[in-house]
C-alpha cells in the first residue's frame, strides 16, 4: 500500500511538473503511467525487486524528517522540492533511485502523450 501510494504521488508530482495536468484525460493518463511504473518495478531483476520497493517507501517517509509528512501527503511544491533534493543529492543511492523512477515516469508519460497506432 505504502509503495503504491508513493508511486502514485511521485508520478502525479512529475507529470504535473511536465504540464500534464492541463491535458484532457490527465487523470486516466496519470493512472496509466503509475500502473506502468508499478508493473516495471515488478519486472526488474528479481534481486532488486524488494530493495526497490523498500527504497521507494524510505523515500516517502524521509519527507517526514524534512517536511513533517510523508511525500505522498505533501503539497505539490514541497513534493517537487523533495524530488530535487534526492535528484541532486551527493549520496549516489538517492540520485540513482530518483533517476530510476524519473526514467520510468518519463517513458510512461511520453508514451501516453504521444501514442502511435499499432502498425
Amino acid at each position, binding site marked *: 500500500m505504502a509503495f503504491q501510494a508513493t508511486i502514485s504521488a511521485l508520478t502525479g508530482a512529475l507529470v504535473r511538473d511536465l*504540464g500534464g495536468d492541463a491535458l484532457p484525460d490527465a487523470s486516466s493518463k496519470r493512472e496509466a503511467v503509475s500502473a506502468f511504473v508499478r508493473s516495471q518495478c515488478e519486472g526488474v531483476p528479481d534481486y532488486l525487486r524488494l530493495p526497490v520497493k523498500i527504497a521507494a517507501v524510505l523515500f516517502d517517509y524521509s519527507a517526514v524528517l524534512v517536511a513533517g509528512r510523508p511525500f505522498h501527503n505533501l503539497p505539490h511544491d514541497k513534493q517537487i522540492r523533495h524530488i530535487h533534493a534526492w535528484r541532486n543529492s551527493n549520496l549516489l543511492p538517492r540520485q540513482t533511485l530518483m533517476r530510476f523512477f524519473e526514467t520510468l515516469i518519463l*517513458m510512461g508519460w511520453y508514451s501516453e502523450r504521444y501514442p502511435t497506432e499499432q502498425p
Partner: protein
Amino acid sequence: MNDPTRAPQRVQVAIIGAGPGGSVAATTLAEAGHDVLLIEAGPHLPVDSAPHFRRDEMMQKYCNGGITPSFALSTSMAYLEGCCVGGGSEINRGLYQRTPDTVVETWRRDFHVDGITCETMVPHFEACEAVARVSPLRAPAPPSSLRLQEGANRLGWRCAEVPRLVTYDDKPSGKKQSMSATFLPRFLAAGGGLMPDTRVHRLRRIGGRWSISGTRRGRTLDIEADTIFVAGGAIRTPALLKRSGIRRHVGGSLRFHPMVKVVAQFPEEINLPGMPDPVHSVKEFEPRFSMGCSISAPPLLALTMAEHPDHMTEVDRHWRHMALYYVQSTGGIGSVHNVPGFRDPLVRVQFSRSDMAELAEGLKRLCECLFAAGAVTIYPGISGGVVLRTTGGVRGLPDTLRGNRATLSALHLFATCPMGERGDRCAVDSFGKVHGVDDLYLADASLLPSPTVVNPQGSVMAIAHRNALHFLERAAHGAAKPRSSDGRTLIARSNL
C-alpha cells in the same frame, strides 16, 4: 511443440535461446535432419505485436521489461536484451554489417580461433543473408539520418549508409527480417520443435546425457538431450553455465559497445512520423568509436533530456525538430554473476580512464558533426545540464566521462565465453564446444571473443552457422549421431 502439454521428454539436440544465434543453429541442424528442440524463455509474438521502441514492446519483448542495470564502483551502464522468440532480432533495428576483417584477424591472432579468416567467413555470411535478407533503403533516408551524413561530409569524415535486415518488396516501409520472419519458419518447416515461455534454470550431466530443468508457465519441466547448444545471449548464457557448475573462463570477460546519446535540435522539422529508420553511421574514427542516429520518438527523446530537467518542456514544444544521436566505443569490461537464491544475473562493469576519455572525445566529435549539420542546440546525455548552442561550446565538454557524469547504455554485448584454443582465456573451442565438457556447445554473442566494432547480429548469425556446420561435419564423421546417416546429405541440406 507449441502445445505446453506436449513437451518432449527426450530430444537429440536442445537449443536454449531463440535469438539470432540459437535460431540459425537450430535451423541449420533441423534442416540437416536432426531432431531439434528450441527452448525460449520469452513469448512467441508477431514481430509487429507492439509499436517498435515503445513502452508496450519493452514490456512484451525485453528482458526485465528493459530494466537491466549493471553495477559499478564509478560509472554504471544500462544494457538491453530481447526476451522473446527471435531474441534481439525482434526488437532491434536490424542494421547489418559483416564482421570487419581486422576483428576477424584479432580473433584468429589473439584467441587462436582455428580456421577463421575473412575468406572462410564469407560463405557463412552469404548463407545467412540468403535467408534473412539485407537491403539498402529504397526511399530517401529520413532527414535526421541525412543531417548526420551532411555534417560528416562538411567535415570531410567518412560516413556510410548501413543496410538493414529489411526487405522493401511488399511495403515501402519495409518488412523486418527478424528471426521469427526468416529462420524460424524454416526451422518449423524442417520439423523443429519450438517451446516458448520456457526458462531453463540448470543443466546436469547424468549418465552420458544432458538433463535440462526449467519452468514453463509456472510448471517445472525436465527434458533429456544428447547435445545442448546454449544460446541465451552474452549475459544469460554465462549465468546458466555458472549455475550448472561450468565456470572455466565463463562470465568474466564481458565486452560491449558503451554508448552516450545527445538530443540535437534543428531549425527545420527533421523528426517526422512514418519515416524509415535512420541508417547513417560515421565511420571516420572506427575502430575507436562510431556515431549514428537513433530512433527519436518523443519518449526516447525525453529519456536523454532527463539530464536537462529545466529544458524538458522543449520536447513537447520541439520534438519534430529534435533527433537522438549516439557515439559508441568498444571500451570497458564487465562480468556476469549469479546472486544466490535469485534467478536474474547481476552484471558488473568497469571503465578505465582511457575508456572514458575516448568516449568523451567521441561525444565532442559527435557534437561538432551535428553543429556542422546545422543543429542549433545540443543537449548531451551527461549530468550537469550543459546545453550547447555553438561549436565553440563543444570545447567546454568534459575531457572524461568518469564518475557519474554520463548516462551510458549498451545494446551490443559479447565475449563472456570467448571461443578459441587459448587455454588461459577461452571457454569454448574454435567451433563453440565448451572446453572439457562433452556435448555442450554455445551459439550466441557470448562466444564472440571481442567487440565487433560494427552492429553484431551479422557476426552472431554467421559464426552460429559456421559452428553448426562444423558440428554436422563432426556428426557425419561419427562424433555425434544425426537422424540421417548420410553425412554429405546433411551438409548439403544445411546449406541454407
